[in-house]
């Protein structure tokens, strides 16, 4: 018989115990420990992203219409939380914070509720805050003349390019903070500087690319803009590597043609080596940080990232076709047969059922990448094929079940 621990047992008898003595001696959680959630209601813009991504349905809200505006109370039920921090990651405004406080003991359910209340002011009915902002906003549209160069602002807030703007009001509708006021008839575009959080949603939403965000190229009014310029530069890249794509060292290579700059890869990257700017449509790899794990490749909804060396020919033609053909080619198809029962598309993207659709725009609002454009007045429902990542949020949110997914 073998007793390997005899020595150990005797020696530990005379050593200090390895015990933490927890309740007597308080102990701190490790750095980056995800404990109790702290919610900053003042930062929240009620974009609902957190609620959407929460796997445990731990985040709920109640809203109440008050004369002041919509009183929103957002509640985090820690008893249902998996502490995955996805909500924090998705929160563009840092309203959700995970602390290192692990002490979540409750005898009542309420003790495990973290909630915060804030007032969401209606965008139109607020003359007061709009007033001080008006001069600024008006000052800008007044200034530009033919030939002037409109530069993006430094403070991260949007700038309108009046020459391109068609006053479609989409930007105003999309604005999560309700900071934009667009009057189609009067052809005015007003930014409430105080409300604006600089999220860039408006610029993305703009179908005419009439809003400039920091990092955008300045636009010369009157001169023909060259928005396709970056694309043109990106295109030759795949051509340069004819036989195979991808890098030998297993690090990711972007396919600019397919990439929609949804930033998912950057968020998922465990090493934080990717930097993707949606607005600027840039995709940057920090070579030093990258660990070549391939996570970006697997999460990319567009298969726009290749890790390691792969055969190109099979994918090359597709990559070349897509920008030109598929979107227009498929759209008519759906419209061709209105009578026939609609079938969900097989590429994972949503399809509108015009017979049911009431053009309420909810889907467009819920779309996390802003790929949908719905005009209530015009009764149009447009899908930006390139932006769409096929997540299905639109279908889930549609009150009429008018979206097939």
């Amino acid at each position, binding site marked *: 018989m073998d007793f390997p621990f005899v020595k150990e047992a005797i020696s530990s008898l005379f050593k200090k*115990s390895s015990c933490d003595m927890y*309740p007597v001696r308080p102990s701190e959680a490790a750095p980056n420990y995800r404990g109790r959630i702290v919610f900053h209601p003042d930062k929240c813009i009620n974009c609902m992203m957190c609620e959407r991504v929460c796997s445990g349905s731990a985040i709920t809200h109640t809203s109440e219409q008050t004369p002041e505006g919509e009183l929103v109370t957002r509640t985090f039920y820690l*008893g249902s939380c*998996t502490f995955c921090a996805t909500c924090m990651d998705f929160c563009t405004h840092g309203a959700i914070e995970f602390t290192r406080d692990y002490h979540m003991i409750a*005898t009542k359910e309420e003790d*495990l509720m973290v909630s915060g209340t804030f007032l969401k002011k209606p965008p139109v009915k607020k003359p007061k805050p709009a007033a001080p902002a008006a001069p600024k906003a008006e000052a800008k549209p007044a200034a530009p003349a033919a030939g002037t160069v409109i530069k993006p602002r430094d403070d991260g807030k949007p700038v309108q390019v009046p020459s391109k703007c068609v006053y479609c009001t989409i930007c105003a509708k999309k604005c999560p903070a309700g900071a934009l006021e667009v009057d189609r008839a009067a052809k005015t575009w007003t930014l409430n500087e105080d409300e604006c959080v600089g999220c860039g949603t408006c610029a993305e939403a703009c179908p005419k690319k009439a809003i400039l965000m920091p990092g955008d190229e300045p636009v010369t009014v009157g001169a023909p803009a060259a928005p396709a310029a970056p694309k043109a530069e990106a295109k030759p890249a795949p051509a340069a590597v004819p036989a195979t794509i991808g890098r030998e060292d297993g690090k990711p290579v972007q396919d600019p043609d397919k990439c929609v700059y949804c930033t998912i890869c950057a968020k998922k990257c465990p090493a934080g080596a990717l930097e993707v700017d949606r607005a600027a449509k840039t995709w940057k790899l920090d070579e030093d940080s990258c660990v070549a794990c391939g996570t970006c490749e697997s999460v990319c909804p567009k298969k726009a990232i290749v890790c390691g060396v792969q055969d190109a020919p099979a994918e090359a033609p597709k990559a070349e076709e897509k920008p030109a053909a598929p979107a227009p080619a498929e759209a008519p198809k759906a419209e061709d047969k209105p009578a026939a029962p609609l079938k969900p598309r097989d590429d994972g993207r949503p399809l509108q059922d015009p017979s049911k659709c009431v053009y309420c725009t909810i889907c467009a609002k819920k779309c996390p990448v802003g790929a949908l454009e719905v005009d209530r007045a015009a009764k149009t429902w447009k899908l930006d094929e390139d932006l769409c990542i096929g997540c299905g949020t639109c279908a889930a949110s549609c009150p009429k079940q008018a979206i097939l997914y």
Partner: protein
Amino acid sequence: MFKKLIEESTGKSPWLFHINAGSCNGCDIELVSVLTPRYDAERLGFKLAGTPRHADIVVVTGPVTQQSLNRVLRTIEQVPEPRCIVTMGSCPQSGNVFRGSYAIAGPLSKYVHVDVDVAGCTPKPEAVIDGLVKATEILREKRRAMK
């Protein structure tokens, strides 16, 4: 005086019975780690009992699946008074990520009165110790109320 002695002792010698109601094993492992030399809950008198008849505190982990519901309730029933029910992790409190699944019978509090919730997924051993200490206090209160 004797009653006082018993009451004091009740607070110092809580024995645990652990029920896994469909847990992913995360909480189970953390509960065991509470008894390891690092945390050593035995310092506070905690001890894992093998049967509910010996237990004072029932620790439930897991989202209480349909299959386990009846067994969990029977087992809790068999624990002698005063007893204290502790849910460990988010699952028994709400169902957590399994919430709404056809296989989940729902939060434990729908069926029995839960004394202490230890939130976390999974809770840190320190949090478990906290929760158990809390449960011990409740246990002592319950003992005081007896007879």
